[in-house]
C-alpha cells in the first residue's frame, strides 16, 4: 500500500458528521516526514476536526485515513486539568509514555519551563501550560506531531521562539507536523504546504500560491493576502541576515 515510505498519514476524501451536521468533508491531505502542513481557516471551519480525523480520535468517518506511524505527539486545542487530580508537570510529562529523566529535562528546557518541573499543573498560567504541552509532545520524539494552535496565550517573543523551535524539531527529528495556526506570518515562513479550510478544502498549495488564491482572499480579506505576499519579501530579507528577526 505504502509506495512512498516517507508518508506518515494520508487522508482520502475524509469527512466527519455529527448529528446530521458535517463538521468537515472531502479533505485529502498527506503528511510526510520532515514536512510541515498547516491548516488555516475561520472559526468552525473544521481545522481541529481534521486534525482529530488524522489522529484517529474520530472513528465513524467518511472517506479513509491511512496511518503509517504509532509514534504520535499531540497538543490539543483545549485541555482542562481537573483539580481533583493532583498532578505535577513531571507526572504529566510521563503521561502517555515512559521517558528518561534527561529527555524530560531537555524538552522542558527547550520550551523554557524547566523551572516548573515540580509545580502542580493546576497552578500554571495559560502560556506556561502551553509550553508544557509542547514539551510533552516533543519529549517522546514522535514521528508525527499534531499541534492545534500550540502557542495560544504565549507572550509575543515566546511565540516566535516556539515557532522557531517547532521548525527546528521538524528538521532535527525529521518528523512530520500537522499545524493549526492563526498566525499567517508563521504560515509563511516555515510551512511547506498550506490547506485553507472552510468546511471543505477551499484551496491548498504552497503559502504563496494560497495567498494569491481568490477564495482565500474572499475568506480572509484582501489585507491578509497582502500580509502573506509582502511577508515573502521580508522572509528573503530575514534569511540573508541569518535569522535577525527583530531587524526587519
Amino acid at each position, binding site marked *: 500500500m505504502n509506495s512512498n515510505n516517507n508518508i506518515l498519514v494520508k487522508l482520502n476524501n475524509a469527512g466527519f458528521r455529527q448529528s446530521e451536521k458535517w463538521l468537515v468533508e472531502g479533505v485529502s491531505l498527506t503528511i510526510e516526514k520532515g514536512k510541515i502542513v498547516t491548516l488555516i481557516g475561520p472559526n468552525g471551519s473544521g481545522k481541529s476536526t481534521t486534525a482529530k480525523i488524522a*489522529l484517529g480520535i474520530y472513528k465513524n468517518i467518511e472517506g479513509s485515513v491511512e496511518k503509517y506511524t*504509532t509514534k504520535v505527539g499531540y497538543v490539543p486545542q483545549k*485541555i482542562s486539568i481537573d483539580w*481533583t*487530580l*493532583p*498532578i505535577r508537570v513531571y507526572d*504529566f510529562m510521563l503521561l*502517555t509514555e515512559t521517558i528518561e529523566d534527561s529527555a524530560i529535562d531537555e524538552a522542558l528546557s527547550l520550551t523554557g519551563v524547566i523551572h516548573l518541573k515540580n509545580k502542580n499543573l493546576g497552578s500554571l498560567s495559560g502560556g506556561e501550560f502551553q509550553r508544557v504541552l509542547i514539551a510533552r509532545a516533543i519529549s517522546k520524539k514522535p514521528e508525527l506531531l499534531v499541534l492545534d494552535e500550540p502557542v495560544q496565550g504565549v507572550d509575543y517573543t515566546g511565540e516566535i521562539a516556539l515557532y522557531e523551535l517547532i521548525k527546528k524539531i521538524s528538521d532535527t527529528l525529521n518528523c512530520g507536523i500537522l499545524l493549526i495556526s492563526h498566525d499567517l506570518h508563521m504560515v509563511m515562513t516555515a510551512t511547506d504546504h498550506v490547506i485553507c479550510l472552510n468546511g471543505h478544502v477551499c484551496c491548498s498549495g504552497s503559502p504563496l500560491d494560497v495567498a494569491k488564491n481568490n477564495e482565500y482572499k474572499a475568506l480572509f480579506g484582501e489585507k491578509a493576502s497582502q500580509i502573506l505576499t509582502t511577508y515573502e519579501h521580508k522572509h528573503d530579507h530575514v534569511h540573508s541576515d541569518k535569522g535577525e528577526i527583530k531587524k526587519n
Partner: protein
Amino acid sequence: MFDDFFIRALFAGIGIAFVTGPLGCFVVWRRLSYFGDTLAHSALLGVTMAYTLDLNIAISVFLISSIIALLLIQLQKRTNLPGDALLGLLAHSSLAVGLVVIGFLTFIRFDIMGLLFGDILAVTTDDLFVIWTGGALILIVLKLIWKPLLASTVNYELAEAEGLNPDRAKAIFTILMAAVIAISIKMVGLLLITGMLIIPAAMARNISDSPQKMVLFSIIGGLLSVILGLYSSLEFNTSSGPSIIAAALILFILSLFKIKQSIKLKN
C-alpha cells in the same frame, strides 16, 4: 491463627483496603461515586441470587454488578436521559427488586442489617481466600491499565491520539469496580462500600501532590480505617461497616488541617 473471627475480619479488611485505595482514587478522579453506589445497590440482587441458586456470594455479586454496568452503558446509548437519572433508576430499582425477592424467600433467614452495613462475624476462611486472591488479581489488572486509564482521566483525546486505547481501559476498570464491590460486600455492607472507596481517597487528595502519592496515602488511610474501625466495633459492639467508615471520616477531618496549613504557607 484464622480461628479467631476477629483476626479473620482484620485480614479481610486489610485485603480490602489494599484494593479500595487505588480504585477509590480513580472513582474520585473520574467522578464515579454515584456509579459505585449503583453497583453496590445492585449487589443485593446478587446476594439473593447466591442464596437461591446456592452460589458463592462474591461470584454472584460480581456477575450481577457487571450486568448492571453493561445495562447502564446500553441505556446511556439508547435513551436521552441524563447519566445521574439512569444511575438512580438502576440503583433503586435493583435494590427494590432485591428486597422484594428476599420477601419471597421465606425459607431463608436473611440478616438484612448485616447485608446493608457489614458483619465481621460473617467473614469465613473461604471469604479470606476470595478477598486476597480476588484483590491481588484486581491490583495486577489495575497496574496493567494504569497508564491508559490515568492518561484518559487527564484527557481522553490525548490518550486516544497517542495510541493508548482508553475505551478498553475504561471497560476493564468498570469490571474491576464490580469485582471490588463483590469482595467487600460482606465486610463493609452494600450501603457503605462507596464510602470505603471515596473517603480514604478524598483524605489522600488533601495531602498529596502527585497521582502515585495519592494512591499510596489512600491505601494507608484505608488500612488505618479498617484497623481503628474494627477494634472500636469490637469494643462498642457496633456494626463493622459503619465503624470503619466513621474511622475513615475522622482521618479525613484530620487531613483538612494539612490543607489549612498549606494555604497559610502560600499566603
